[in-house]
C-alpha cells in the first residue's frame, strides 16, 4: 500500500480570520517515527494548525501534502491516514464507547472492527464501562474514548489537540507512553501542549508557534523542552 516512508508536509500555510492572520506561512515536514510537540501561548495558532493539517479546515494560502515517499497520497488515502483528536472529541455521545470504536473501525475500513474495538477498550482502560453511552462518561473517560478512536481508525498520523485534557496523573503518564510507542511503531504524532513535562517525556521534536508564526524548531528531550518554553514564556510580562 505504501511506497516509501510516509510524511506530512506543511508548505507555507497561512490562515486568515477576518482581517487578521491566525497562521503566517508555517512550513515544516513531519516524518514517520517523529513525535512532535507543538507549543505556544494561547492564541498562537496551535489548534488552527492542527485542524488544517487534519483537513478540518482549508488553508487560505499554502498547502498540506501527505505523501508516501515522493508520491502524494490520494484524497481518500489522506483521509484514512490522518487521525484527528480535537477539543470537540468527534465521538458520538449517545453511542457507547464500544459502538463508537466499532463504528470508527468500519468507517476506516479496518478488517475486524469488533475484535479491534475490544482490544482498544482494554488498552484505554474502558473495558468495564464499554457499554455505557459516552454522554454518561467523565471528561477524562470521554478523552480516553477519543484516543481509542484514533487507535481503532488505524491512522498513520496522529494529530492531537491537548490530548491530556481531563486525564488524571496516571492517565497522563499512560498517554505519553502511548504516544512514544506510536512513534516507535513508525507512526507520526503531532500534539499540542502547555506542559513542559509532556514535551520532555514524549516529544522527539518541538515546534514553537508565536503569533501564528513558526519561530523555533527544536529537538525533544529536556534541553528542547526548556528552550522551547523559555521562548514561549519569553515575551510574557
Amino acid at each position, binding site marked *: 500500500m505504501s511506497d516509501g516512508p510516509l510524511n506530512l508536509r506543511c508548505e507555507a500555510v497561512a490562515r*486568515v480570520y477576518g*482581517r*487578521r*492572520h491566525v497562521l*503566517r506561512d508555517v512550513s515544516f515536514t513531519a516524518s514517520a517515527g517523529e513525535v512532535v510537540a507543538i507549543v505556544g501561548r494561547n492564541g498562537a495558532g496551535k489548534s488552527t494548525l492542527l485542524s488544517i493539517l487534519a483537513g478540518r479546515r*482549508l488553508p*487560505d494560502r499554502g498547502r498540506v501534502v501527505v505523501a508516501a515517499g515522493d508520491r502524494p497520497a490520494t484524497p481518500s488515502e489522506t483521509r484514512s491516514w490522518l487521525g484527528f483528536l480535537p477539543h470537540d472529541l468527534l465521538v458520538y455521545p449517545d453511542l457507547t464507547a464500544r459502538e463508537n470504536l466499532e463504528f470508527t473501525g468500519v468507517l476506516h475500513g479496518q478488517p475486524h472492527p469488533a475484535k479491534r474495538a475490544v482490544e482498544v477498550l482494554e488498552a484505554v482502560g474502558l473495558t468495564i464501562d464499554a457499554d455505557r453511552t459516552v454522554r454518561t462518561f467523565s471528561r477524562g473517560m470521554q478523552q480516553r474514548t477519543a484516543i481509542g478512536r484514533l487507535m481503532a481508525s488505524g491512522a498513520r498520523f496522529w494529530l492531537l489537540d491537548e490530548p491530556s485534557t481531563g486525564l488524571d496523573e496516571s492517565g497522563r503518564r499512560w498517554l505519553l507512553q502511548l504516544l512514544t510507542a506510536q512513534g516507535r511503531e513508525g507512526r507520526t504524532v503531532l500534539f499540542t501542549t502547555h506542559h513542559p513535562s509532556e514535551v520532555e517525556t514524549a516529544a522527539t521534536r518541538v515546534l514553537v508557534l508565536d*503569533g*501564528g*508564526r513558526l519561530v523555533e524548531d527544536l529537538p525533544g528531550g529536556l534541553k528542547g523542552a526548556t528552550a522551547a518554553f523559555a521562548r514561549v514564556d519569553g515575551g510574557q510580562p
Partner: protein
Amino acid sequence: MRTKGGFTPGWIGYGLTVAAAGFLAAALYMVFFVAPKEATMGISQKIFYFHVGSAINMLVSFGLCATAGIVYLSIGSVNRRWADIADAVGVATAEVGVTLGAIVLITGPLWARKAWGTWWTWEPRLTLSLMVFLLFLAYLALRAFAGSDRFGRSVAAGLSILGIPALYFIHVAVDRWGGAHPQVVYKGGLTQIDMRIAFGLSVAAVFLLATALSWLRLSIERERQHLDALYLEVDRRLG
C-alpha cells in the same frame, strides 16, 4: 503587488450609468408621449412596459447569480481571485435581482387590479416571479446570517445553483397547477409599431439600469474585498 489599484467604477460604470439614464428618459418619453393608449386597458396598460422589462431582467440577474455560484463552487477552492470575483458578482446580481423583483411584484398587482379586477392572481408568470424573488431573498438571508466566511459564501452559492432546477420545476408545476385558470395573454396589446418600440426601449433601459447598478455594487464589493486584503497585508508585514 497586492497593494496596487482597487476596483473603482471607472469609465464602464459611468458610461453604463449615463447610458441607463438616457435610455430611461427615452423609454419614458416613448411610453407616455408616443405610444398610443391601449383600447381596453387605457392608461394603466403603460405599466406593462416596465413590468415586463423588470421581469425579464430579473431572470437575467438570477441566471448571472447562479452562474457566479457555479464558478465559485467549481474553481473557487483552487483560485481565490476567481472565488472573490464570483462571490462579488453573486451579491451584486442578487441585490439588483431583489430590487427588480420588488418592481415586478408591485407593478404586477397594479396591472392585475385594472385588467382582471383583483390585486393578485396566481397567474403562472406572476407566480414564477414571486418564487424567484423569494429565492433571492433566501440567498441574501443566507449571506447575512449564515456567515460571510468561505463557508457561508459556499452555502449561498449552492442555493443559487439549486435555484436553476428548482425554478424549472416550479415553472412546470405552476403552469399545470394554474391550468384551470383562464390564461390571459399579455402580448395581445402590442399591436402598433410605436408600442413595440416603447417596449423594446423599456426592456433595454431596465437592462442598462440593472447592469449599471450591478456594476456599481460589484465595484463596492470588490473595493471591500480589496480593503480586507490591504488590512491583511498590513497585518502580514507588521505581525
